[in-house]
């Protein structure tokens, strides 16, 4: 019988945390570069956010002559309201096509209009028809990538949750501390490089679209390990998501239903959105683009209607779809038609009746700050995908996360393999630190009395949704920050786990996740207080205008337990760097 302090020591060149497309693409690239790779999945390997995605893929494929790399770049920067890391955005644009072909090589069949012509459409925020897709959506993408993992014999550890990145005396990565949740035993993967590809942190919100495992573990782990975060005040909310049934609440309802004819024609109108009084409230917010506006504007408009009491009893608003696009919708997105049928009924599935929609937390725009090869400021620590920040800036184009995770997943894998070759194998350096950490992380298991993690998680989610969500204001943000600090100091030390079985102990896992969620909640609240403007997905009622002075990024790092927020000029942009590293805040 394993005891709390038993740790199994294993070795690898590259440890990849996360089984979504970014993680798998990183593992494939690192393996192909000659590294010995281990991929960790917190749940079963298919439990990831990529699989839930619509799988839309923005790319300049050459099939729309009006479009070009510069237009895609401009769209991305415009959507990100200028604070994207321009260098990363440029890489995304330049490499998206090669990675789309990689997926096809892996076995994915992009939708086609002719044998050699991809089917293209528009998604949220873009100005050109450029988005590829496949009927199997994110499911197909993850399946073909899993087959590539199998083909290479890359080791995948299901139910293995990364809890900490351990550094050696010189500050370099020595490995990852991991709990095997299926057995309740600890493993220390001694490795010179760790890639964080654990996805976003949408679970911070009461209503979210992503999977329940997206608790921002990797981002918080990187922060604890000394890496910097960037843009964490930005969370993307999708305007169009399911309102009921309970279980599906918040799940993205996809854009073709909402976009209607605009799905194929940038000049066409999108489906009207009506409040419970039958008013087209979006006209107040964007009289020009109307319902064809960007995700951030629509999500905010809907949320304000709901908050001001003009929502439906279920907490949504009505979307009036165009039945004329039904055939195209059914052909392109049968999985969503099925969900509409099951959740709402046949008239809604046929786009013949109003559909209730609500905004929901979709995508973590910020994350670990990376360079063009996905390296963080900690030697040996890399990040890619939703866990990394900077590519999309203040708001993301619909269909840009799929190329992001492919492009930067591959870059992270290649760079990690290189770094691992150059580094000395860390051996069992860090094992003692890991052992000490295990004792801390096992504490809730020993406590007889206290608070269940589920209850605390619910409180955090409510606070985030109400005060650090779509609509933010100084006093509420400060109040939330104090609440998070209080939870961390007074409640976290009292967490208890009902069952002491070490096998698949969900409460124990939730207690580990909760520490990560709280770290990020704190960082998000602290940066939100600092950013005194409204930009993209970020809306402050007390600063409702976009301020050119704030065309800048906020970086977050932790120094001896304190969260430090710094304002920096946008990386790689044409504007001269102001080098304004003014340390503007110190929270907690």
């Amino acid at each position, binding site marked *: 019988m394993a005891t709390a302090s038993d740790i199994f020591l294993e070795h690898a060149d590259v440890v990849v945390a996360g089984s979504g497309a970014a993680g798998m693409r990183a593992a494939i690239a690192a393996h192909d570069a000659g590294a010995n790779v281990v991929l960790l999945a917190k*749940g*079963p390997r*298919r*439990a*990831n956010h990529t*699989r*839930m995605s619509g799988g839309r893929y923005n790319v300049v*494929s050459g099939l729309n002559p009006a479009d070009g790399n510069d237009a895609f770049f401009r769209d991305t920067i415009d959507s990100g309201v200028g604070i994207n890391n321009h260098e990363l955005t440029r890489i995304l644009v330049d490499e998206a096509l090669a990675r789309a*072909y990689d997926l*096809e*090589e*892996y*076995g*994915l*069949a*992009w*939708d*086609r*209009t002719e*044998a*050699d012509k*991809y*089917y293209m459409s528009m998604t949220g925020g873009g100005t050109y028809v450029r988005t590829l897709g496949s*009927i*199997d*959506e*994110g*499911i*197909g993408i993850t*399946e*073909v990538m899993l*087959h*590539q993992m*199998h*083909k290479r014999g890359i080791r*995948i550890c*299901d139910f293995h949750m990364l809890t900490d990145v351990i550094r050696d005396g010189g500050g370099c990565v020595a490995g990852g501390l991991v709990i095997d949740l299926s057995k309740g035993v600890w493993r220390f993967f001694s490795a010179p490089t760790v890639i964080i590809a654990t996805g976003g942190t949408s679970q911070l919100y009461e209503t979210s679209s992503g*999977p*329940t495992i997206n608790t921002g573990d990797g981002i918080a782990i990187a922060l604890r390990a000394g890496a910097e975060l960037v843009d964490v005040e930005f969370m993307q909310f999708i305007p169009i998501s399911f309102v*009921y*049934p*309970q*279980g*599906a609440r918040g799940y993205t309802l996809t854009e073709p239903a909402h976009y209607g004819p605009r799905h194929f024609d940038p000049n066409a109108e999108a489906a009207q959105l009506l409040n419970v009084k039958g008013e087209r409230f979006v006209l107040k917010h964007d009289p020009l683009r109307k319902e064809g506006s960007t995700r951030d504007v629509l999500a905010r408009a809907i949320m304000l209607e709901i908050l001001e009491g003009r929502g439906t009893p*279920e907490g949504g608003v009505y979307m009036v779809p165009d039945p004329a696009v039904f055939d195209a919708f059914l052909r392109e997105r*049968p*999985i969503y038609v*099925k969900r509409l049928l*099951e959740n709402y009924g046949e008239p809604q599935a046929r786009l013949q009746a109003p559909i209730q929609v609500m905004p929901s937390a979709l995508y973590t725009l910020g994350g670990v700050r990376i360079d063009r090869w996905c390296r963080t400021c900690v030697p040996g620590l890399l990040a890619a995908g939703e866990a990394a920040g900077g590519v999309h800036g203040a708001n993301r184009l619909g269909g840009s996360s799929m190329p992001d995770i492919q492009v930067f997943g591959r870059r992270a894998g290649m760079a990690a393999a290189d770094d691992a070759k150059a580094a000395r194998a860390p051996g069992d350096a860090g094992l003692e630190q890991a052992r000490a950490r295990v004792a801390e992380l096992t504490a809730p298991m020993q406590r007889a009395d206290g608070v269940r993690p*589920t209850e605390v998680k619910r409180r955090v989610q409510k606070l985030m949704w109400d005060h650090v969500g779509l609509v933010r204001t100084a006093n509420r943000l400060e109040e939330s920050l104090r609440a998070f600090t209080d939870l961390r100091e007074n409640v976290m030390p009292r967490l208890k*786990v*009902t*069952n002491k*079985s*070490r*096998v*698949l*102990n*969900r*409460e124990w896992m939730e207690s580990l996740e909760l520490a990560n969620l709280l770290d990020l909640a704190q960082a998000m609240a602290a940066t939100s207080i600092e950013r005194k403007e409204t930009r993209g997905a970020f809306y402050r009622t007390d600063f409702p205008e976009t301020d050119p002075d704030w065309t800048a990024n906020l970086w977050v790092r932790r120094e001896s337990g304190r969260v430090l927020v710094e304002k920096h000029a946008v990386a790689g942009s044409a504007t001269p760097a102001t080098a304004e590293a003014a340390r503007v805040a110190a929270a907690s």
Partner: protein
Amino acid sequence: MSTVASITVTAEIQRFDPSQDAEPRFESFEVSGLANMSVLDVVRSIYENQAGDLAYQFACRVGRCGTCAVRVNGRPVLACQERCKAQMRIEPLKPFPALRDLVVDRTEIESRLASFELAPLRNNAHPGQPELIAPDLAAKLCHMDSCLLCMVCVSACPAVEERPFDGPAFMLKLRHMAEHPADRRDRLDQALQGGMLECFNCDVCTQVCPADLSPAQAIRDFRRELFFGRGKEA
């Protein structure tokens, strides 16, 4: 919806911790809520309010990840998609070994999938431009590849129970590759090795599939290929 009625569900859940229990047992819970709750909603409510020690698995809660499959009143279903009913007996998916309570060990499933080498075996590298695939075939390939690998069909299949047969989902995955124009591996042979001929052609898999797929049709396509030879351009 506001018009949705309420329901009180009595759920008997199989509890089993192989590290502590000799035998599985059933524990009964009552949950009240809206009638359109899913089985997963009921299980989550039990975990959150009544049994913090319950082991269950889900991630996407919208029929995407395929990891929440259980048996409800003996029938394998996706817990997140199945609507609750007043009396439910919830058990882990058979015939897989249970890790604890409702969670099964998928190790053997994954190694079987890996052994099928489902990546396309190509003669030539990808052309670096859209590969030639007819639009209808592309749609068909995608449809087949929307299989969740949730194992609901494998659990329901009578041939898996009675005969040496890997199961419907595996045959569907092989068929997906058999239809892929770039793949050069002999998928029919692999299907035969996997027990394809043991299938009763009863379409239970077609009926229970939560993704509207028909593994039985994939098997019929393989059998037709066995009689009449390969339809795909060699």
